[in-house]
């Protein structure tokens, strides 16, 4: 089973295998190119050798023989290098977490825990609203109380002023004054009655 090395791809932005494949192809191309160059040079040199009985086909066979040998070693060595690359260079060690995933370590939240957290937030938001409404209701009542108190105080002031009026006119306390008025009027009545009796 292929290890897709997705975590490495997340870090590098490419899969290590692709990177190695790219290097392999490039190296292999160079090997072929250099072999081709070698063969070209030899053919050219041969043209300059008088009486040379080696044919280009023979040279081609030599080239293929050497290349086949080199290619075998190349694949073997490259396979070993690739393993080392994938194990030691293009690999995120299993105990290592990438920086962008730090939060997974710091806040290991399961879906259930996360839902609980969201539920708690929703409850808190409701509570917030309730407290806001409570605050408004309390402030409204305080406002009302202020108005009522003013009214009541006005009424009390009215009573005070009434009494002050009385006081300004010599009667400090209405009740007493009324009592004294009633007594005086009764006295007046008695006097009048007396006067009427004597005049008869």
């Amino acid at each position, binding site marked *: 089973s292929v290890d897709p090395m*997705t975590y490495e791809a997340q870090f590098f932005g490419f899969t290590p295998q692709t990177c190695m494949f790219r290097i392999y192809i490039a190296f292999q191309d160079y090997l072929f190119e250099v072999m081709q160059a070698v063969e070209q040079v030899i053919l050219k040199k041969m043209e300059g050798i008088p009486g040379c009985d080696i044919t280009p086909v023979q040279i081609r066979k030599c080239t293929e023989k050497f290349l086949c040998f080199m290619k075998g070693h190349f694949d073997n060595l490259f396979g070993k290098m690739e393993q080392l690359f994938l194990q030691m260079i293009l690999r995120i060690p299993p105990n290592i977490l990438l920086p962008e995933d730090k939060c997974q370590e710091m806040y290991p939240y399961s879906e259930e825990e996360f839902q609980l957290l969201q539920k708690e937030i929703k409850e808190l938001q409701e509570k917030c609203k309730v407290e806001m409404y409570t605050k408004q209701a309390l402030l409204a009542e305080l406002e009302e109380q202020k108005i009522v108190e003013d009214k009541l105080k006005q009424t009390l002031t009215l009573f005070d002023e009434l009494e002050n009026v009385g006081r300004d006119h010599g009667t400090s306390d209405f009740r007493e004054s009324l009592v004294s008025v009633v007594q005086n009027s009764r006295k007046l009545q008695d006097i009048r009655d007396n006067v009427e009796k004597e005049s008869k």
Partner: protein
Amino acid sequence: AVSRVKLLDTMVDTFLQKLIAAGSYQRFTDCYKHFHQLQPEMTQRIYDKFVTQLQASIREEISEIKEEGNLETVLMSLDKIVEDGKKRKEPAWRPSGTPEKDLCSVLAPYFLQQRDTLRRHVQKQEAKNQELAEAVLAGRRQVEELQRQVQARQQAWQALHRERRELAAVLKE
């Protein structure tokens, strides 16, 4: 710990050394036997050129790849990440394959922050409302007191009014 860049260069060098060692001059002349017999010096020069060119091309390719993918910087940053995380021994977290699941931890810190803010907000508001409630209760007591006073004064005046009516009646007679 050897840096990854150094490891990479070492591995490529080793690869080249071994490749060249495998494709030795001996092996080369075995393959190009006739030509070698005709032109031994030329063969040597061509072989040397082959080796130099192969090494130069492969090294150039590696430099290009390093350049292209900014590989040196990336590998150095990986060295740093590994160095920083080396204390941890057990396997680290890896994506679960279910994005929703993995996102929980990404979002958690922000939701925790929101929860704490809301908690503080609610506590503050509750405390304020507590004070307001006390003020309302005190206000209610105050209003009751004033109402009582007004009532008392009102009753006194009504009593007075009754007496005055009596007086008026008496006086009228």
